């Protein structure tokens, strides 16, 4: 109950809870509680995702724990959740470019691809929104990098694979 409340209710500016916070409330065997909760959440189509700090891959105390959807959404779910297909497509393009370049790319390069699909003002608006939501970060010198939310929510390898496969599917259909 405590673990579920901590993980589901947002208590900081960002969602998710740090391992040490869980340890403080649940005791030193908090990972057992998390595992038990995870198996219950999986029955509901949810799961607990652990994101480690860079360079501290096995430090659960410093890691952040989130509850995420375990199954992918459908297009109708997406529309029902209030997302615009245009916006998701822009996010897909941006994250694919960043993932394929090791997580970093100049803003100019991303905008160049986005502008093949959207007018400049729209592309910039979508990028700003993605920055605000934490999907991407803007560094100095107009360089974009992967944001904290992408690290939690998006399987970057799966995204690149999906981009390639989607294209191939289209080619096969046209043949």
């Amino acid at each position, binding site marked *: 109950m405590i673990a579920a409340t901590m993980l*589901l*209710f*947002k208590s900081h500016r960002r*969602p*998710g809870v740090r391992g040490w916070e869980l340890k403080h409330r649940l005791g030193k065997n908090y990972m057992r509680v998390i595992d038990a909760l995870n198996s219950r959440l999986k029955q509901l189509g*949810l*799961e607990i*995702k652990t994101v480690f700090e860079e360079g501290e891959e096995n430090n659960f105390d410093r890691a952040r724990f*989130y*509850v*995420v*959807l*375990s199954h*992918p*959404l*459908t*297009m109708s779910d*997406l529309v029902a959740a209030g997302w615009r*297909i*245009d916006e*998701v*497509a822009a*996010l*897909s*393009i941006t*994250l*694919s*470019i960043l993932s*394929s*370049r*090791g*997580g*970093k*790319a*100049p803003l100019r390069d991303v905008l160049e*691809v986005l502008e*093949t*699909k959207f007018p400049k003002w729209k592309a910039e608006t979508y990028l700003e929104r993605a920055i605000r939501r934490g999907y991407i970060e803007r*560094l100095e*010198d107009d*360089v974009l*990098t992967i944001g904290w*939310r992408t690290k*939690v*929510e*998006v*399987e*970057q*390898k*799966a*995204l*690149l*694979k*999906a*981009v*390639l*496969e*989607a*294209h191939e599917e*289209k080619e096969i259909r046209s043949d």
Partner: protein
Amino acid sequence: MKKVEVTREELERIIKLCENIEKRGLDPFTVNIRELLEKLRRIIEKNPSLDHYVIDAETLYRISALIALQHKWLREKAKALFIDAQMISTRLTAMDKKTLAKAFLKAWHPIISLEQMTPQRLRQGLEHFLSLPPRSGSREFGWKITDKEMELIKARLELEEKAMMEKIKALHLELLKKFEEKGEALNYWEFIKGENFDETFERAYLLSFLITEGYVDVKRNPLKNEVKLIPHKEQVKRKSPTSLVISLRGEVH
């Protein structure tokens, strides 16, 4: 001298190049590390001065950082199944928006989180609000009041003010009448005493306005613990006003 400057510029150019690749996330394999190191060796051998050693060390550090970046780049590439960035860009350009959104959905697992007010949060909010310092002038609240609501509020305030003024006037007349009848200063506690505590409190409250405005003088005798009231028909201007605190105790009904 000119030669020294040229080599220094060359080293600074190498540093800048390494920095740019690191900052902008460019492909670190576009630079020939071996060539850079050979160039650096030549420069060190030709200029064995302390000034040069410092900038040489900085250049060497930047080149080492670039090698580390190459290592990271390779690892990232391996993780991303060696998918070429150029190929991805080309494919993204060719895909339509719906297919792009579908591809994203396959890899997307959004966070589930709720924002809800809890008793603890409410308590924190109240504590925060109470700890805020008062603002000079009027406080601007977040909600909007319509013109009609504003008129109603004004009318209500005017009515309340009018009723209050009438009560103060009546109390002033009562005080003057009692003063004329008695011919001496009136006892504060006897005058404010009402049928119950509510009334006593109200009389004391209204009387405080008359005292502040200069319609009533207060004489206090600390030895006898007496507070006397001397009313005036007209407002009297005071030369050196002071404040007096009188506390009332009782239960409000």
